[in-house]
């Protein structure tokens, strides 16, 4: 919005700072507020800035001993009023109008105060201007979006690392454990099959052995019976021969033959008896072997039973472990029903949603980072152009180039391309640089803002240079307001005007 430069701006303050009531008028061109110390210059400027910016807190504007205060501005056929009220708790609230060209950024680009903003930064030796340009170019909106999106993405990422998701992430491990249990169960079953098959073969072998031994035993027992029968027959034969011998004459030849026969029979009986003895021993041994085989068979059966029972118990344990593992898996796939945020929902589903959100946020971040870079680069280049232009037009000696680099660091290049750190500048040069940077910022970002205000910066200023800078401003800004210290003899606060065309200063006291 362009203000009619022919019109006066009337400012009325009541109970503002140390001022009870004052009315001043600003004319197009240079307006110098002259007053001794503690006369209300800063109160006036602070009050006026509150009509287009909230940067000065309301509590710093209202007079300390007052409950209510008012600022009224008349310009361009309109009257704008802003009221300040102290609440019972002691805080101060502001309400009412602001000027139509009100813009928060104007405070940074068009109000030069010693204690804040660019002047404060430069006089303190600061050279970083990123946040300054961010704020003026609205790049801070992008950085806020980027920062908020990043915070949200980080928060979501942290959420993904939370307990429920961590449990879910153990699912592959749980599945491996379950698989191992299945493998163990299959192995145990295979062992049972092998045991049953092997044992059957073993028992079969033992049974065959036993069958063979039993058969041998039967044969040997039959042989023993045969031997015993032979013995009985031989004994009967001997008795018969003894009977014959009794009936025969002892001297007869027959008697001698019978006695031989008896002797032979006895000899034979002895042989058979020996053979019976051996046979009995053999049978005893066979019976022992068969008994041992029976025991072995029994033991084998018992061992198999024990092994099978052991394996079956193991399978039972594994089955139980499988059920528990399956339950564990079932629990890990969902949030608990009493989960405050995701009660009972599937983790995979929630994770997919959150991942999509993060992906979307990353796209937002990327997009706004690109936008931010583009905006900030454009802002920096325009700003640099205006700084260069100002230096050229002001014809300030000593500086070859003043610019912000890609990192928004201020570079001051002296003649012969010598870089000079900001902190090594003289106080007067620091003020010049500050004002030129502010003016460049105003021209870049707020070209239509009608005011440029300088509050008491002239104390340590080279008057010639200050005059140059102010004249330069006056050509470009409709209203330039400068506060300046005056001697006590000069009286109260007064505004002195110097229009662009008139070469002399014309003091005018409106009201004080």
């Amino acid at each position, binding site marked *: 919005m362009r203000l009619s430069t022919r019109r006066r701006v009337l400012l009325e303050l009541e109970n503002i700072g140390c001022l009870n009531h004052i009315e001043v008028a600003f004319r197009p061109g240079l307006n110098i507020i002259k007053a001794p110390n503690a006369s209300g210059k800063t109160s006036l400027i602070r009050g006026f800035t509150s009509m287009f910016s909230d940067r000065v807190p309301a509590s710093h504007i209202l007079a300390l001993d007052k409950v209510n205060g008012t600022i009224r501005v008349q310009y361009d056929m309109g009257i704008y009023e802003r009221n300040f009220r102290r609440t019972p708790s002691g805080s101060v609230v502001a309400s009412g109008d602001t000027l139509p060209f009100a813009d928060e950024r104007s405070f940074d680009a068009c109000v030069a105060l010693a204690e804040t903003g660019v002047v404060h930064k430069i006089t303190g030796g600061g050279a970083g201007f990123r946040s300054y340009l961010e704020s003026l170019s609205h790049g801070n909106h992008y950085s806020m979006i980027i920062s908020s999106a990043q915070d949200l993405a980080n928060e979501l990422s942290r959420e993904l690392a939370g307990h429920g998701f961590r449990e879910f992430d153990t699912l592959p491990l749980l599945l491996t454990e379950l*698989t191992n249990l299945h493998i163990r169960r299959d192995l145990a079953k295979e062992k049972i099959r092998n045991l049953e098959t092997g044992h059957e073969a073993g028992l079969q072998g033992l049974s065959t052995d036993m069958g063979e031994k039993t058969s041998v035993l039967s044969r040997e027992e039959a042989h023993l019976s045969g031997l015993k029968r032979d013995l009985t027959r031989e004994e009967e034969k001997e008795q018969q021969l003894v009977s014959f011998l009794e009936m025969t004459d002892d001297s007869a030849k027959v008697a001698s033959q019978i006695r031989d026969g008896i002797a032979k029979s006895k000899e034979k009986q002895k042989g058979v008896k020996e053979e019976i003895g051996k046979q009995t021993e053999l049978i005893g041994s066979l019976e022992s072997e068969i008994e041992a085989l029976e025991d072995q068979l029994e033991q084998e059966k018992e061992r198999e039973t024990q092994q099978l029972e052991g394996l079956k118990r193991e399978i039972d344990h594994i089955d139980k472990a499988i059920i528990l593992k399956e339950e564990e*898996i079932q629990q890990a796939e969902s949030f608990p029903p009493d989960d405050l945020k995701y009660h009972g929902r*599937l*983790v995979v589903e929630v994770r997919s949603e959150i991942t999509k959100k993060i992906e979307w946020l990353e796209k937002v971040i990327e997009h706004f980072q690109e936008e931010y870079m583009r905006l900030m680069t454009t802002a920096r280049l325009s700003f640099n152009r205006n700084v260069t232009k100002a230096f050229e037009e002001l014809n300030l000696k000593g500086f070859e180039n003043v610019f912000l680099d890609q990192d928004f660091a201020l570079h001051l290049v002296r003649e012969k391309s010598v870089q000079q750190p900001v902190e090594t500048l003289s106080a007067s040069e620091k003020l010049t640089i500050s004002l030129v940077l502010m003016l460049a910022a105003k021209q870049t970002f707020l070209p239509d803002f009608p005011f440029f205000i300088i509050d008491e910066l002239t104390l340590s200023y080279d008057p010639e240079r200050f005059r140059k800078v102010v004249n330069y401003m006056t050509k470009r800004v409709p209203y330039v307001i400068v506060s300046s210290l005056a001697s006590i003899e000069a009286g109260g606060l007064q505004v002195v005007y110097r229009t662009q065309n008139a070469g002399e200063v014309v003091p005018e006291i409106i009201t004080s």
Partner: protein
Amino acid sequence: MSSWKRSFEMATQELDLTRRKKQALDDLLEKRRVSQLTYEHLGKTLTARLLELEAHQRSLADKMNDRADELEEQIGLFELALAYLEIRHVGGETGEEVYTRNKQTVVLGLDATKSELDLIRNSLTKISL
């Protein structure tokens, strides 16, 4: 032993374990212990791994086939060398001691080659199963 053997054993073991895992997962779905979504999530990884392992095993099989061809050729050469030794021995061109030593060396090489070839063939059979 050749490096293929260890690679083959590892690949076979892992492939077997992955197949078992897939089976376990299928069982879980059948028993309704996991939802379809979780099944798909876990199954996707397992299927991808299975495909990867199968491809790896196929590539291994190709290399093993190449190696088997080499070994067969090598066996042919050993047998030829053995026959040559025998002929020279029978013809009295080589002394007993030299013949025995050379034959022992060739036979050792031949046996080792045949043994490796057998191992490869057995392993290839397992893959085809």
